[in-house]
């Protein structure tokens, strides 16, 4: 007899548990405004939220006079675990006649970058930063290899 009561209890409990689940899904069914999806391609210019720190790609900021801070010391190239960065430096003659190493091309392969931030960390001049850009895909793999310093850009000397 006790077994029978227990059995009926179990069945009732089972049905109760199932109905609780059904109620939960019904609750979400009738409340569409609680939904969480983002209308992504439509909101790319309006409501999309990209945090400030989001690491999308490495950039070499230039100031208004087209000057950057990179001294071509290649510390970032050495710090990169993936061989993403290639620094091509050129030797030019300075005003005082001394030979000087300057940056020629800051080659960055976005396709190999894992956004670990080691290069930014290693840079003694704070010349490079991470930018929160997104939608960086391209049709041609060669387009992922970028030269970060703008043509004609120069080294920004320290003020001090």
């Amino acid at each position: 007899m006790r077994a029978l009561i227990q059995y009926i209890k179990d069945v009732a409990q089972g049905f109760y548990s199932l109905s609780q689940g059904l109620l939960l899904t019904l609750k979400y069914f009738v409340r569409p405004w609680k939904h969480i999806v983002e209308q992504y391609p439509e909101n790319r210019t309006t409501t999309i939220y990209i945090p400030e720190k989001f690491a999308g790609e490495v950039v070499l900021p230039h100031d208004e006079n087209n000057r950057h801070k990179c001294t071509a010391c290649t510390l970032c190239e050495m710090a990169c675990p993936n061989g993403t960065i290639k620094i091509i430096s050129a030797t030019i003659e300075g005003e005082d006649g001394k030979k000087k190493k300057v940056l020629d091309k800051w080659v960055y392969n976005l396709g190999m970058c894992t956004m670990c931030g080691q290069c930014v960390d290693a840079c003694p001049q704070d010349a490079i930063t991470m930018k929160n850009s997104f939608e960086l895909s391209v049709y041609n793999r060669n387009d992922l290899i970028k030269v970060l310093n703008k043509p004609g850009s120069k080294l920004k000397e320290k003020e001090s």
Partner: protein
Amino acid sequence: MTLTIQFSDITKWIHETLNASMSPGWALFSEFVLAGVAMILLVVVLAVLFVYMERKVAGFMQLRLGPHRVGPWGTMQVFADVFKLLLKESFAPFTVDKFLFNFAPILVLAVAFMAMAPISFAPGLQLWDMNIGILYVTAVSSIGVIGILMAGWSSNNKYSLLGAMRSGAQIVSYELSAGLSLVAVIAMCGSLSISDIIASQADGWWIFKGHLPIMFAFVVYVIAGTAETNRAPFDLAEAESELTAGYHTEFSGMQFGMFYLTEYINMAVISMVATTVFLGGWLPFHIYGFDAFNNVMNFIPSWIWFFGKTFFIIFLMMWFRWTFPRLRIDQLLKLEWKYLLPLSIINVVIVAFLVVMGWHF
């Protein structure tokens, strides 16, 4: 009071015009063709609606929006999918049994269409009011499992075979309790004909008449019907996380589309039978003594009543699907053979006793 044209008038008019213009034999043939085309169109439109509904229901229950890009609110999405399936190659692997492989989806679909024949959508809108309507539906819909077994066997794929065997075991067992729960109502009203069953509910739907055994039979029928259509939580035949896609793993293009369509047509058949037998078919909802309310209910056309009830039961099945986890195969069979079937048999015995004693109304 009613301004609506009765469907029987339309059919009568068609019959008379055809007979006036051609010989009776040709007229009959044209009527068959017309009826067939109308039925196929109706079923396809219904299936498309169900697919759209399923996606929306699933989306809303999962905090999503469902399809919403193709057409307004995504209404064209289903058509886009159907056209995609139509344009795709129906690829058959090298080692399949070609004849069975190609025949299986056609058989499954044809059987699903056949089961629609005796169903009465509205007064007069019925293809064939045969005197064994319910028996015909249950009999025909059980042929579908042969198609599934054929698909699984001919695919020459172990997943397909396992899915087909599961499906066979499942459908064969769950048909028993589905049939027995229908027997409860049939015993009460004393007829297998669908129009008789509907007529017997003119003074109240069976489920609201207050017979406990009938209510129980309704619950059993919904459970068994869900299982018969291979839908979650009984979707073991195509259990995605276990057998990838079960019996239709190897099918592609429109052949897959046929299986997909069949699932929804089978759902429609199950819910239409449930509507007819338990929920009063196309009869409106009446409350005894409330004449004003009853008149308002009468004003709603009967086909809206019928499809409204059908959609409600289909919503129930979708609701189950998007809430519950799947059963294991032994639990599935245990549920049928150890719980539903004995209870259904006892239920039928009680109903028979009630009928013999004349205690029903």
